[in-house]
C-alpha cells in the first residue's frame, strides 16, 4: 500500500507565479515530513521539513503546510524561478516507531517556464 502519495506527476507554472505541490499520507503515526528536490543524475536534496506539532514552516521562497486532520501537506514556492524546475518528492517518517526511515511519494515534476 502507498502510504505517501503525490497524485500529480507533473506541474507547469509561469516564472514569478506560485507553485503548489501536494502530498497525501495515510499513516497517522508519521510525525515528521520533508520535501526533497531532485535534478537528473543527482541525489535528492533536502529542501524543507515540518514536524507534526506545527502546521506551517517557512524558509525563504519555500513554505510547507501540514493539515493533520486531512493527512495532507503542501509545498508552496513563491515566486517560482526557472531553476526550480526539478522533481519534488515528499517524504514522511516516524522516528520512534520506524527508526526515522523515510517513506517517499512518487514525485511531481515541476516545470517553471520563463
Amino acid at each position: 500500500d502507498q502510504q505517501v502519495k503525490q497524485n500529480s506527476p507533473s506541474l507547469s507554472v509561469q516564472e514569478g507565479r506560485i507553485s503548489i505541490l501536494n502530498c497525501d499520507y495515510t499513516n497517522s503515526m508519521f510525525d515528521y515530513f520533508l520535501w526533497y528536490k531532485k535534478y537528473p543524475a543527482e541525489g535528492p536534496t533536502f529542501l524543507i521539513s515540518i514536524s507534526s506539532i506545527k502546521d506551517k514552516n517557512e524558509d525563504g521562497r519555500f513554505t510547507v503546510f501540514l493539515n493533520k486532520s486531512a493527512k495532507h501537506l503542501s509545498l508552496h514556492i513563491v515566486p517560482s524561478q526557472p531553476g526550480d524546475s526539478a522533481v519534488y518528492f515528499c517524504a514522511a517518517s516516524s522516528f520512534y516507531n520506524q527508526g526515522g526511515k523515510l517513506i517517499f511519494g512518487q514525485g511531481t515534476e515541476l516545470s517553471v517556464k520563463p
Partner: protein
Amino acid sequence: GAGVSQSPRYKVAKRGQDVALRCDPISGHVSLFWYQQALGQGPEFLTYFQNEAQLDKSGLPSDRFFAERPEGSVSTLKIQRTQQEDSAVYLCASSRDREHQPQHFGDGTRLSIL
C-alpha cells in the same frame, strides 16, 4: 567533501555477478540509510544502521542483498547473484541520530544488470 559520497557512480554487471556499492556518510552522522529507486518512482527504504548496528533490514528485497557498516562509518551494500530486476539507482543517506533530523543523500549508484 562535506556531503555523502557514493561509489561507483555507475556500475554495469552481467546477470549472476556479485556487486558491491560503497557509501561514505557525512562525518559525525550516526544514522545511515540505503534506498533503492526505480525509474519514475520515489526512493524505497532498504536498510538502516545506527553506528555499526543494523537496526532495520526489513526493506531488503531478498537474501541476495547484504549490507554492512563494520566501523560505524563507511557502509557497503552487496548484491549477490544479480538479477535484471536489481537494476536501479541505489541511494545512501545519513543523518544525526536525533528526532526530526533530515537525511542527506549522496548522488547514488546507477546499477545496470545485463
